[in-house]
């Protein structure tokens, strides 16, 4: 999956002067594949591309040699943090206390530093020591071939679980499935969707506007716990399908069962390297025993990020699928 370099160029605009210049001038091939930008106090400037880490030199050269890398200092981090928070950390305290800020374009900036606890739990992060900018990768059309496998003959959506290791593109795939279902791109069959976007990754909400294309019939509960969001969506948004990212907690499963009882269909993602590994997770056992999911999509990196490894049916049998 490749990014539009324009998205990357817009993203580096938020960085402080020197970092911006250095990262702006890296070779195009890396701009297209970039996944993360790592800024750590007193450490080399790094990027992640295609699952590998690279160092950046002062002349914007990309290599794996830490000795020639550009070293980030405290003022780079401070000024970048100021620009990211719009010079207003006080306005982003709720997000900061969760450990990240979503910025324009739907990119997420993870924050490392001194965590301050108060009466209500984590209140703030001070003395920021590192920033991890995760580049939002919106790949429109990545799920087009997949949609026919997710809708049954009576035009009902089949409950689907996307299984993948980290950084294999499961959120990107989920987002595109949501877009396709919401817009009715397959046989004009559209659905009302509620997205429970606990980590603001799916819709990439920024000031109340989704930064990613999530379709015209999609409602978003942003920053909401999955367990709470599912119940809220059932009560108030009357969705046909609920979409959630990274399920696994006991409470998530209880809420999912509640949604299924209400006749709502589900699409979810989960961390896992294989179908068997996920099958054996204690919290998931109930859902597997009840054969809740009719489709399991397994992602891998065999042909690059977002490769669909296999599709399984309700009983776990592999369905023939044309791999990309």
């Amino acid at each position, binding site marked *: 999956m490749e990014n539009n370099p324009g998205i990357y160029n817009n993203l580096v605009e938020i960085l402080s*002067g020197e970092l911006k210049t250095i990262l702006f001038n890296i070779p195009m091939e890396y701009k297209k594949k970039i996944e993360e930008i790592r800024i750590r106090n007193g450490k080399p400037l790094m990027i992640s591309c295609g699952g590998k880490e690279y160092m950046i030199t002062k002349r914007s050269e990309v290599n794996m040699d830490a000795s020639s890398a550009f070293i980030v200092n405290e003022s780079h981090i401070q000024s970048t943090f100021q620009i990211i928070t719009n*010079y*207003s950390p006080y*306005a982003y305290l709720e997000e900061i206390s969760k450990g990240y800020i979503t910025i324009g374009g739907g990119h997420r900036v993870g924050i490392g530093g001194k965590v301050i606890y108060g009466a209500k739990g984590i209140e*703030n992060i001070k003395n920021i020591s590192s920033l991890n900018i995760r580049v939002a990768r919106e790949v429109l059309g990545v799920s087009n071939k997949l949609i026919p496998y997710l809708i049954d003959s009576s035009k009902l959506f089949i409950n689907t679980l996307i299984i993948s290791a980290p950084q294999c593109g499961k959120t990107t795939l989920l987002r595109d499935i949501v877009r396709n279902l919401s817009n009715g791109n397959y046989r004009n069959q559209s659905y009302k969707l509620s997205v429970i976007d606990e980590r603001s990754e799916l819709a990439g909400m920024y000031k109340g506007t989704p930064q990613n294309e999530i379709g015209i019939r999609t409602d978003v509960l942003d920053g909401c716990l999955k367990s709470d969001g599912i119940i809220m969506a059932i009560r108030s948004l009357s969705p046909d399908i609920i979409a959630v990212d990274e399920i696994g907690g006991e409470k998530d499963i209880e809420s999912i069962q509640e949604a299924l009882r209400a006749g709502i269909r589900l699409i979810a993602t989960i961390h896992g390297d294989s179908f068997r590994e996920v099958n054996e997770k204690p919290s998931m056992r109930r859902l597997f025993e009840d054969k809740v999911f009719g489709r399991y999509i397994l992602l891998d990196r065999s042909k690059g990020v977002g490769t669909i490894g296999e599709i399984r049916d309700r009983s776990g049998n592999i369905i023939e699928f044309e791999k990309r």
Partner: protein
Amino acid sequence: MGLLKILSAFCIFITSSAIGFSYGQTFSLRFENLLYLEHCIKILETEIVYGATPLPEALANVKKKGKPRVSFIFDDIRRDLISNKREAIYHSFLTVEEKLHHRLHLKKEDIEIFFSLGRVLGSSDREDQSKIFKIVLAQLEGQLDEAKLEKNQNAKLYRSLGIITGLGIIILLI
């Protein structure tokens, strides 16, 4: 010849009085502008502490709600902050120093108090920001008292001095 003398004397009187008035007026202006500045800072406090409005938006709102004679300063800071992507808002505060001094007739001490707000504005949580606003407003209150006293003492004095000097020159010339 007599008419020319009267005309000259009149010109001297008007000029001298105008200089006296204008100098005396700077004390009144400083007091008024400090008062408006205090009002603007209170608006900014409300935006940040109670509204959690992001700083650029908060500064724009101060420009809209405050007295234009002073509130333009906040918009200048906002524009500088956004267009130059400053590392800290304090650098944007520094760019309005000349205007504070020459257009608003503020003293070095007044400007320093305003800049002390710029050093910490937006950098901490709302509780901290609230404390900072209280300190700055209390310091400005002190400057206001001093400016009022100075205005009462000096504004009248310089106005009278202008008139008296004018009259003195006319008497000497005649």
